């Protein structure tokens, strides 16, 4: 068990910088997900922790040892790979015990450990099978058993569930969480699937363009994204973004304006350009907005497309003279995505009026993309900043 620390790690390939001055501090026993779009450098970051890639600059620490130039075998890590990477010429027992045999453990110790590891991943009956006789989920469990059998200080998992089908993925997700509870080992987990990141991790490290954007617990990343990228990346469907301009006590956008509490907003003044962000679930139809303490003025819109998901409906609204034929870029100011109750009687092409929850409106600096505030009214003292609005009624 150990903490993992990256200090100013940079990895350059010829003219591409895959990882740019990464600083990460992963605590002992923590489950941290590295998320980001493809090619953002999350896998490279993991490879530098594993020792499969040597960073161009910077230091890697595992526990209290500096391991930057140590080969993978001396780092006290185990890894689960995206393509599973079982040795096809060995049966399950040999695969799991490979690392132990290399380290010359006594036979009965190996047997005991393999038994325990295969017990944890429920593979006791299959120790004599060859990898090509197993299903995808079973293979992945073998790979996990191979990793836990050595009782490493740190687990590295590189999109271990990416190649599984959707149902199995959800199942393995729970199993991994149970495993983490049981072993209490530091886990670094790479994924591009934010659902995995949200559900499993203690903290999420959002990476884009080789740079760390934010590292925080999932709900903090969700509720208080550090910048535009995190706000857009975390959450599905994505947050609405509207361009706005600051005036006196108001933020004007093309189709609506919202008042803000100057005490909440630092460092911007009239005339500044900002991006207004609002999550779909924080947009309410006017007739359901009774419980809102701080709604905005009514915004008139026309419903465009409805996407019923079962437990909720995503409604795409067109604001003002919004035209669906416009390009994605130009249309953002005229579009608003909201989620509504599944029993709503809203139809496509309806005229609707909506309000936004001002406590949940995010402002981002247009120039830097950094967040300015995560709420336009002061709610300190109340307990509503992260909780559901319902809590205030109790």
């Amino acid at each position, binding site marked *: 068990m150990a903490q993992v620390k990256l200090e100013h790690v940079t990895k350059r390939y010829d003219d591409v910088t895959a990882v740019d001055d990464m600083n990460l501090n992963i605590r002992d026993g923590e489950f941290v997900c590295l998320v980001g779009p493809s090619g953002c450098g999350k896998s490279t970051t993991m490879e530098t922790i594993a020792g499969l890639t040597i960073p161009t600059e910077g230091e890697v620490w595992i526990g209290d040892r500096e391991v930057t130039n140590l080969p*993978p075998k001396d780092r006290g890590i185990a890894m689960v790979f*995206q*393509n599973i990477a079982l040795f096809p010429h060995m049966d399950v027992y040999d695969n799991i015990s490979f690392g132990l045999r290399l380290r010359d453990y006594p036979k009965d110790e190996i047997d005991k450990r393999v038994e325990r590891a295969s017990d944890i991943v429920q593979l006791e009956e299959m120790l004599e099978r060859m990898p*090509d006789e197993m299903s995808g989920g079973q293979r992945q469990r073998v790979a996990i058993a191979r990793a836990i059998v050595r009782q490493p200080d740190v687990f590295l998992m590189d999109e271990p569930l990416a190649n599984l089908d959707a149902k199995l993925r959800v199942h393995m997700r729970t199993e991994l969480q149970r495993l983490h509870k049981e072993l209490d080992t530091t886990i670094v987990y790479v994924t591009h699937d934010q659902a995995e990141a949200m559900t499993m991790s203690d903290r999420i490290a959002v990476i884009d363009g080789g740079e760390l954007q934010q590292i925080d617990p999932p709900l903090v990343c969700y509720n208080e994204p550090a910048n535009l990228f995190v706000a857009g990346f975390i959450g599905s469907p994505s947050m609405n973004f509207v361009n706005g301009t600051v005036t006196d006590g108001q933020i004007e956008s093309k189709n609506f304006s919202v008042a803000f509490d100057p005490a909440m907003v630092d460092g911007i003044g009239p005339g500044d350009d900002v991006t207004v962000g609002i999550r779909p679930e924080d947009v309410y139809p006017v007739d359901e907005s009774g419980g809102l303490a701080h709604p905005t003025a009514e915004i008139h819109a026309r419903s465009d497309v409805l996407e019923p998901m079962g437990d909720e409906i995503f409604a795409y609204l067109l604001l003002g003279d919004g035209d669906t034929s416009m390009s994605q870029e130009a249309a953002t100011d005229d579009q608003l995505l909201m989620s509504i109750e599944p029993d709503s009687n809203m139809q496509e092409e309806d005229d609707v009026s909506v309000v936004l929850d001002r406590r949940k409106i995010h402002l981002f600096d247009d120039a830097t993309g950094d967040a300015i505030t995560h709420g336009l009214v002061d709610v300190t003292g109340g307990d509503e900043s992260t909780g559901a609005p319902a809590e205030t009624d109790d």
Partner: protein
Amino acid sequence: MAAETTQQEEASGPLQRWTQRAIQNPERIYRGLFYAAMVFFMFTTLFPFYWLLVLAITPEGQLLGGSYLPEIDLFGASATFPLPVPQGFNPAAFIEVFDQLPFHLYMLNSFALAISTTVVVLIVASLAGYVFGRLDFPGRAFLMLGILAISYFPPAAFVVPLFEAFTGNAPVVIPFTSIPLFTPPRLLNSPGSMVMPFSALFMPLSVFILTTFYGQIPDGLEDAARVEGTTRLGALFRVIMPLSAPGVATAAVLTFIAVYNEYFFSSIMATSPEAQNWSPIVGGILSFQTQYTTQFNLMGAASIVAVLPVVVLVIIAQERIVSGLTAGALKE
């Protein structure tokens, strides 16, 4: 349309009908051609062995005693039997081979040379194959080209300088000067003088075979092995090589057979064709030819004895190669 065709068929001769059928059903023709080619190759491959066998069991006195194609009497009409048959029956030639010369020692020499060369080639070519197949470094293509170029040199070009070096009389000098570098040990009549040039000569082919095979092993498997606790070298020998078994077997068999049959270098590096000078099988076979006599029957018998181990080896290796290919273990 159909009626027209049948009319045509009826009108045409047997050749035309046959052609028609062949066009409609080419499978038959392909199969026929396949068998024809098979028979041809079987005949050209097996006939020399048969001829060796005929010579081997013909008693020495009968060797030059006339035609091997007997006249046979076919109910009054005489004809020539189309295959040669032995003139007499003398299986003792197979024992005589070991009596007259220590032929088993020649075989042992060839075996030892072939095995040690194969081991050297496999180890060095594996390292080279790993580097060429799995690592990206500047100058890789150029180096590969260099290996290819060297493999084009005729082996004869190396014989004289190597012989001189292995004699160990004079120091090796820097080319075009008389500055001595070192005096090599006398290696003539020792396995060193043969294994070294053989390894160098047969290396390029193995390097190419192994480069291709090692290059196909997914990176993930090597990474997994390294994380599990091997070095890069350990991953090569524990994971990459076993998974490339068909390629390794191919390289090994080709090298082994080439060295086992080698004569040119060994005949020169062994100063006389004697078993204690590490003369190989061919040297032994040729020793049945003396200044005054040529014992064709013993040469034939010796050749057959010498071939048998290779036949066994190839059959075993072929099974391995086929099983390695059908396992399809490389799919992730």
